[in-house]
Each structure stands twice: as C-alpha cells, then as structure tokens.
C-alpha cells in the first residue's frame, strides 16, 4: 500500500466514523427542547410546582426538582422517546409522593439494589394504573424496546433471570414458560417466595424491602460483589434505591438545613465611630474562617488569633457581655446567611466604602414590598449610583473574537460591525413605526370628515339639544418625543451560557443594536443603566449613558460592565422610575433585559421577589411609565407573567431575532394599543 493510499483510507475511515456519530446524534431527543412541556406536565400530575433539571446520568429527584436524563435515544421514533420521558416523570412523581429515594450514583448499583428497585416499582405501577388506567398503553409500547434491549445480556446469571422475570411481570407479559430451567432448588424457592409475596400481591409501599436482601443472603445465592449493574434502559426507566446510610445522611442534612434557617435573636451593641473594612478571602483558611456573623458583616478569626467551632451552634446569648466589651472595629463582608444577630450602628462604614471605591457617588433609599405582611418595608433598600466612567477598564467581551488590545472603542466598533444587519433592520423598522400615522376621529378640525360623528351631529342639531362640533378626522404622526431607559441585569447569572453564547454578551449586543438604532432616530434621548446587588444594603445602579450624554461617547463604557452580584430587580426599577420621572415627556418606556428571577442572598427570592417586582410595575403605571422586559431564559415564561403581566414580556428564543424582537416591542408599545 502506498503512503497516499494509506492516508486516503485513514481519512475515509475517520470521515465514516464522524458521519456515523452525527447520525446517532441526530436521533437523540434532548431534554432542553421539551423542558417547558415536561414541566407543565409534571406540575399538573403532582399538583404542585415542579422544576426539571437535566442530569448526565439517569435521573432522580430532590425535593420538588426532578432530574431527567439530558438526552435519550431508544428508538428511531421520537414519540417513543418522549413517551419514555413521560413515563419517567410519572415514575419519579409517584416515588416522590411515597417518599422513595432514588439514587443516581452508579457506583452503589448492584443486583440487590436492582431487585429491590423492581419490587418497589411494582407497587408504583399499581398506584399509577389505579390513577391513570391509560398507562397500560404506555407500558405495552415500551415493553418491546425493554425486552429488545435486555436480550443483549446473556440470561445465565441467576440475578438477571430474576430481574428479567420481574420486569416481565411489571410489563404485564404473560409467557413465563421454562423460566425455572436454569435455577437450582434453593433459587427456585427464593423466586417463588419473591413472586408470591411481592410481585403478584398488592404490596403496601411502606414495607421495608431490605429484609428481602437478608433473606437472599440466608438462602446463600452467590453474591457478585462490586458488580456494577449498569443497564442503560433499566436505569433510565427505574433508577436505583438509595441505601439506608444515604437516607441517614439526607435526614441529617435536612435537620442541619432546618437549624440554619431557624430564626435567631437580635442583640444590639454600642455605637462605634470608626470601623475598618478588611478584605476577606474565603479560600485562605477554609477550615475555620469565621467567628461571628453580624448582619452579613463578619469578623475574621485569624486576624487577631482565636478560633471557635463552626458546628453551627448558636451561643451568642451566652457570650453577649463579652462581645459587648470587644472592640468590633474591624469588619468584613460575607455571603453566608445570618441566624442570631449581634448588630451595632456604624457611622463611618459608608465613608470607608467611599474611600475604597471612589466611584460611589450617591445613595438612595427605596421601599420594598413584603408580600407576607402585605406592607411596604420603608426605606429598606439602599441603592448606590455609579457612573460608568468611574469604573475600571476591563476586557469583557467575547474572547473568541481574537481582539488582542483592550481598546474599548475597537471592541464596540467590532460589535457594531458584526451586528450591522440587525442595526439596519431595527433602524428601518423604527423609522417606519415612528413615521406611521393614525387617524383620530371626533376632531375639531382635520382634512377628512368623520361620517359617524357627522350623523350624530345631524341628530343632535335636529333635536336641538346639543352643540356637537367634533366631526373631523385628523391624521396624526406618532409622537417621537419618547423617553426610553434600557435597564440591564449585570448579575453573576449572566456569566452563564444561552444557545452557545454568554448571556452577558447577548445582553450587550441587544443594547448595542437597540442604542445604535435609537441614536439615529431619537437624537440621543435614551438612557442605559445596569444593576446588581449584594443584599438590600448594597444595590448598585450603574449609569452607562445618561439622558444628556451622547451615545457615541458613552457606548465604550458598556465594556466595563462585568457579571457580578445578585439580581434584586425591585430597587433597580424603582430607581429607574425616579430617574424617568424627572423627564417631562408623555411617553416613557422602561426596557428591562434580564436572564433570571429576582434573587438576592438575603432571602429576596421566590414569591417575595416576584411580587415586589409586580408592585414596581404598578408603581410605574401610576407615573405613566410602560415596563417591557426581554428575558433570556427558557423557563422565564412561567414567572414573567406574574411579574409584568401577560403582554409585557418577550422571550429571546434565538439571537437571530434580536432586531425583529426589538421592533415588535416598539410596535406593541406605540402603535398597537
């Protein structure tokens, strides 16, 4: 064989392998494509809020979160694969209802666990069929695939025979002839015992199945220790039971969690005048880093020696006198939760902060809505105004673009160049929208006559009761005097990925496309701000472009926004409302671009955060400010309607649609009323 022939053959082989791989890849169905469908389905079955996350293994559940395999390819029929997901969801939900713990850990899998799982599955099946008789149809459809898959394994192993038998029973398969052919007497006795007591009968779910294993040991069937029972389909369908020891760890963990969430007491210290902020690095001493927690402000234990236990015990009351005597003049910040609080009024913290971060210029206090008490928490959140030109220069755009320099102007121009088509499309649409004219009826003057109004006038004149002069139609162009504030989320969650692209980059691209187009039409009358937070006392509002500044000058500051902190949306919206209220223009639009739910680590989450944002929307309506939001999150359609109302949110499904999406927002906002 010549060398060129050899290379040709190799390349051909490699290409074939690659093509085959792609073929397999094409047949897979991916969970992410069906996520919202499955979430709705599981919420309906369980009658509670259920979240679904993808899992690299075979799935399971923790609290109200189901883990499903990220991709499945059992047959060429996609419907069968979807059916398998649905079966898995039903199986997990019933397991959850009856508190069976399923494990994902392949390493603990053995035959014994498989048999145990199968016995429990039988009970789950019975419950499933009782609730949903149509599940029979699913199982009949799945059975041929299960058996086809199992035929790959040689059924000479005793355990496999038992497992196979139970599976057949589970799938309502009736042909069991010659089943006992390979079994010894003892094994036959065991199988009979299992069938009689557990498979054929309607066993109660509360039974402890581990005693079967002891029985298994007693009748001395050879155990194949450390054998990993790893059948792909078996795992996907039915998973594994968790061992007792894991359950124990779980219960301990829950106890610990309860303890850490229990509310402690609050103690007050004397007022201190001077406090020094210490930069605390968590990784320096991981074993024993903290001695006390003070409203998210901690002292560092190894700063002046002295150690204490970090077992979570709350002894603050016992040490109160001693703590009062200690001069707490050195503090640091941490992200951990507080329990009991030893608080003190500090006069100079803000000034110290200002010394450290010279870009902090002004702080504002805002109320926050507490849906538990149905009241506002007055002056609850402190928001700091930061001007973007004070921020340090960072290179935070896509590194794939191979821009060596950190010249902000170059980076932005590169992105404008890249999104030129979108910018042109949006500019064209905006021009079209704002050059659109609408006919107003019942006007005092106008080029056309309003026939309906004229008829009414005629009737009034005849009756002699009313002076009705408004019978003209007037063509009016849309008002270009609008004020737009683009508020972008710069929390750490934007550092994640969406459709193969970083969310922070997508957000910045949206801003560039929008602002470049707006700049051509509205003569700079728009603003861009970003926000993030670290608890209620430390919300940041970064002004990238003011209403007065020029976009051409300000756009480079977009590079300085980096993903950091949490997403406390409420104060950011309230601060934006405050800003926009200063502008005396009739039409105001606040466009929020975010990727996640409102979250902050001082329990600003769930319904609390959602309802605070909802309250903000009402507050904005009072001042005639429209709030629209663009979300870069597949699951956001489940919570956005609660926050912004049904017609006020838009989901970014693909990057290609940015221009189209933005033009749709403007059309909905200013034309379609």
């Amino acid at each position, binding site marked *: 064989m010549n060398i060129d022939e050899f290379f040709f053959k190799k390349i051909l082989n490699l290409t074939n392998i690659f093509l085959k791989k792609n073929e397999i890849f094409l047949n897979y169905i991916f969970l992410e494509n069906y996520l*919202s*469908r499955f*979430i709705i389905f599981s919420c309906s*079955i369980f009658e509670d809020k259920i979240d679904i996350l993808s899992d690299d293994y075979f799935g399971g559940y923790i609290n109200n979160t189901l883990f499903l395999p990220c991709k499945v390819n059992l047959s060429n029929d996609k419907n069968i694969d979807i059916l398998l997901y649905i079966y898995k969801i039903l199986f997990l939900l019933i397991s959850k209802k009856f508190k069976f713990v399923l494990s994902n850990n392949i390493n603990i899998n053995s035959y014994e666990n498989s048999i145990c799982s199968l016995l429990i599955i039988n009970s789950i099946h019975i419950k499933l069929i009782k609730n949903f008789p149509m599940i029979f149809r699913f199982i009949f459809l799945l059975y041929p695939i299960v058996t086809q898959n199992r035929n790959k394994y040689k059924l000479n192993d005793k355990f496999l025979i038992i497992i196979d038998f139970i599976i057949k029973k589970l799938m309502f398969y009736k042909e069991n002839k010659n089943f006992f052919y390979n079994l010894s007497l003892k094994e036959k006795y065991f199988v009979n015992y299992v069938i009689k007591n557990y498979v054929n009968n309607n066993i109660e779910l509360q039974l402890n199945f581990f005693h079967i294993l002891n029985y298994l040991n007693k009748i001395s069937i050879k155990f194949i220790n450390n054998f990993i029972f790893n059948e792909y389909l078996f795992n996907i369908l039915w998973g594994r039971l968790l061992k007792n020891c894991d359950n124990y760890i779980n219960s301990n963990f829950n106890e610990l969690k309860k303890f850490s969430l229990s509310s402690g007491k609050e103690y007050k210290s004397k007022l201190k005048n001077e406090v020094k902020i210490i930069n605390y690095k968590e990784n320096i001493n991981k074993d024993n880093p903290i001695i006390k927690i003070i409203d998210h402000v901690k002292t560092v234990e190894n700063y002046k020696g002295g150690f204490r236990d970090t077992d979570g015990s709350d002894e603050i009351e016992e040490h109160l006198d001693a703590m009062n005597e200690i001069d707490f003049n050195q503090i640091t910040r941490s992200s951990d939760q507080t329990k009991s609080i030893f608080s003190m009024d500090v006069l100079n913290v803000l000034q110290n902060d200002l010394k450290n971060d010279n870009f902090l210029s002004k702080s504002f206090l805002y109320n926050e809505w507490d849906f538990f008490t149905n009241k506002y928490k007055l002056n609850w959140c402190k928001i700091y105004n930061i001007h973007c030109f004070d921020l340090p220069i960072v290179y935070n755009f896509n590194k794939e673009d191979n821009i060596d320099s950190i010249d902000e102007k170059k980076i932005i121009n590169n992105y404008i160049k890249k999104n030129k088509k979108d910018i042109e499309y949006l500019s064209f649409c905006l021009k079209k929208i704002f050059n659109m004219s609408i006919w107003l009826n019942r006007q005092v003057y106008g080029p056309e006559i309003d026939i*309906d109004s004229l*008829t009414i006038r005629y*009737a009034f004149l005849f009756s002699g009761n009313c002076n009705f002069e408004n019978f003209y139609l007037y063509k009016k162009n849309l008002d270009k005097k609008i004020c737009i504030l683009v508020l972008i989320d710069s929390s750490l969650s934007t550092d994640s990925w969406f459709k193969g692209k970083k969310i922070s980059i997508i957000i910045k691209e949206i801003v560039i496309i929008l602002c470049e187009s707006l700049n051509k039409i509205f003569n700079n009358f728009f603003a861009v701000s970003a926000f993030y937070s670290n608890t209620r006392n430390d919300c940041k509002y970064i002004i990238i472009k003011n209403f007065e500044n020029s976009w051409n000058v300000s756009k480079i500051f977009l590079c300085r926004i980096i993903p950091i902190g949490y997403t406390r949306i409420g104060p950011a919206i309230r601060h934006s409302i405050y800003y926009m209220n200063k502008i005396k223009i009739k039409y105001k639009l606040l466009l929020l671009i975010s990727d996640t739910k409102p979250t902050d680590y001082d329990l600003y989450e769930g319904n609390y955060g959602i309802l605070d944002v909802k309250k903000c929307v009402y507050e904005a309506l009072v001042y005639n400010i429209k709030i629209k939001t663009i979300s870069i999150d597949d699951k956001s359609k489940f919570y956005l309607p609660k926050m912004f109302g049904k017609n006020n949110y838009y989901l970014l499904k693909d990057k290609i649609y940015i221009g189209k999406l933005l033009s749709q927002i403007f059309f909905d906002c200013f034309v379609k009323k």
Partner: protein
Amino acid sequence: MNNNEIKTTIKNIVVEPFYEDINGETDIFLHCYKAQLPVILKGPTGCGKSRFVENMSYKLNKNLIQVSCNEETSSVDLLGRYLVKGGDTIWQDGPVTKAVKENCVLYLDEISEAREDVIVVLHPLSDYRREIYIDKINLKIKANENFMLVVSFNPGYQKGFKELKISTRQRFVGISFNYPNEKKEIQIIIRESGIYESVAKNLVLYANKVRKLTELDLSETISTRLLINAAKLIRLGVDKKIACNSSIIQPLSDDKDINESLLDILNLYF
C-alpha cells in the same frame, strides 16, 4: 358611534334553561329580587353565569335584556341616543332605559370591560335611588320593584389591570361562581350532551388536573362549557382525543409547549 357596536339581546324565555344549583345562589338571587338589591356575579368564564341569569329570569317570569360590554361601551350606548330618520330625529332608548321602563331583568355582562363613564348609569340605578337620568332628553326614570339589575365580571381576567371600582362593587350583592364539584359537573355534562358517564367522568378528571395548574398562565382554564362542547362532539362520534384537542386544548392556548403538555395529560385519560 354605530348602534351595532353594542351587543344587546332581549330574550323571552319560554322553556326553563337547565341550571344545577351549586352553592345556594338561586335562593340568594330570589331574595335579592325581593329586597330590590342589584347582584354582581363573579366567576371564571364558562362556569354558568349567563345560564344562571336565564334560569332566574324564567323563574321570575321576566324578559331578560343582556348587554355584552366591551371597551367601547359607554353610558350613551346604555341609555339611548338620537337617530336621524327621514328629515327628522327620533330618540331611541338604550338597553338600560328599555329594561327600566319594561321591568325586565337587565344583565350587563363583563361590566369591568366597559368605559368608566358607565358608572353614571350604574351608580344611581344600583343604590337606594334606583333611577336613571337621561341628560339628552332631560328625563329621570325611576325603576319599580319588578326591575332587577345583574352585572358580571371575571376577577382573574389578565387582559390588563382593569378592576371594578370599590364604590361600584359595594353597591351590589356579590355571588361568587366557580366550577362545580366533580359529581355535579359530571351530571351537568351528561345532561347537556347525553354522553356516557364514564366519558364524562374522564373529562372532568382531566379538567380538574389542568385547573390546578398555575404554571400554565392561561387567562382562563378549562371551563364546564368547553367540556360540554367536547362531550357533544364525542356524542356525535368524533374520536375522543380529536374532540378534546379541538374543543378544549385549541381554544385555550396557542402556545405549542402548553398545547403539547395538555395533550400529554389528555393521553393519561383517553
């Protein structure tokens, strides 16, 4: 404004419309009629509000004037207007004026959708005064004891932030409607469509599963009306799944994911 824009129907109900009492609302309504109190019906769409009013009109032996309000409905549309006829103008009574004059049951459906100026009509008519004032012809008409005012609105309607004013709401006696319990809903479906009990039961089980779903964010959920529509199609021989899909799922949502998951749930019952 054209007179066509306001949808008014005048019904003389001869045959008793079927209505299954759920929470003693029939009694409350009859007592309100005796006490000359206006009634506000609250409840999701398709739960039987209009049927209830029809049933009550039959029981009271009265004509029913029903007005479907929309965002263009104003006080003028309700009270009346001048029309040009030949070389002259004539006054045409609106549905409210007509109902007050003829002692009918006046039913204003979706009142929260109407323009704010309808309170000019509603407030004097719904409190102790029980009268309307028509400014264009300078006429005040007092309703007698045989007149009954009923309004309805859907509190959970998410179309906008429209809510009924407190001052308006407090003038009415409120009757809250919801979907009937499983047993009664099965009976209603069987009675309305003539379908087998087993199919009706599955329809109701399916509806109850979806009704508990808050995640869907549907403006309205599966109503008894939708179930009856599906049952009627099934009764005529349409395949159960196709019937449910076209009469329940498709009218509810246009979202592909939501429709598919509703179909998945349906597959568990049919």
